[in-house]
């Protein structure tokens, strides 16, 4: 499984850039450390789990 990781990384990157916040439709910034997509406008952070971004408002972490 570890052999797949590099390819997944590059292909994730392109996809992440195409995503917007489902609440505000504003662009997102990628937090590589927490593996989250951050919507500053909505104060929400969307998790990336198993390499799949989870773009649901209900699943997002509320930012202060």
């Amino acid at each position, binding site marked *: 499984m570890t052999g797949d990781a590099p390819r997944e990384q590059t292909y994730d990157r392109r*996809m992440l850039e*195409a*995503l*917007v916040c489902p609440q505000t439709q504003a662009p997102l910034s990628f937090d590589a450390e927490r593996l989250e997509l951050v919507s500053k406008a909505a104060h929400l952070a969307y998790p990336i789990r198993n390499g*799949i971004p989870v773009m649901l408002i209900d699943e997002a972490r509320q930012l202060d």
Partner: protein
Amino acid sequence: MTDDSQKTTHFGNQTIPEDEKAGRVHGVFTSVASRYDVMNDVMSVGIHRLWKDAMMDWLAPRSGQRLLDVAGGTGDIAFRFLTRAPGASAVVCDMTESMLVSGRKRAEAESMADRLDWVVGDAMALPFEAASFDVYTISFGIRNVTRPQEALNEAFRVLKPGGRLMVLEFSQLPVPAMQWAYDRYSYNVIPRMGQAFAGDRDSYQYLVESIRQFPDQDTFAGMVREAGFEQVKYRNLSMGIAALHSGWKI
């Protein structure tokens, strides 16, 4: 502001508060995710494969197109699209994470990985920019959306001008006697088959009821127009057990 707590929607034959539907649909699909292909076979006696091929025939995928397949679950539609158009790319978007995880494990997903993205998202609030796709498909998904009209509006938003919507969904038989016979089959046979093949009667019961609650062909075509689509047309499949709806964003 309207009082959301009083809004209700269908969950199969039950009327439930709107804000409960997504969670309950999620429960159904989480419970069937790994056996979803089996479920489709049970529901349509295997004919869903022919319907999906009919969908591709009408869509005529072309190289260079970017597809958004919503409620795309295990990737069935995206794989077909990309097989027909080797130069196309696709995003599979589904509310249910476990469906995407099983889809990504399929052999086709491996061979098409560089043209295929997987995103958990809500059809009523898509995480994509306006005018970013050439084709939007939703196959056996829109009847599970809490407010289907909002999903159609979102489809219109994310399509480019000149983009195409295509919806495949169970529908209503135009001949009452046949609808009667089909209802008998649906209500009596399918939940038992669900129990027998997937060990899950309740989820199949929901699926049968949700099919019967879904608007008929002309009503749904009206909703597609309402979202802004033009040249709205539908084709019945297997005499109306399912229907394909097509619309263009001009």
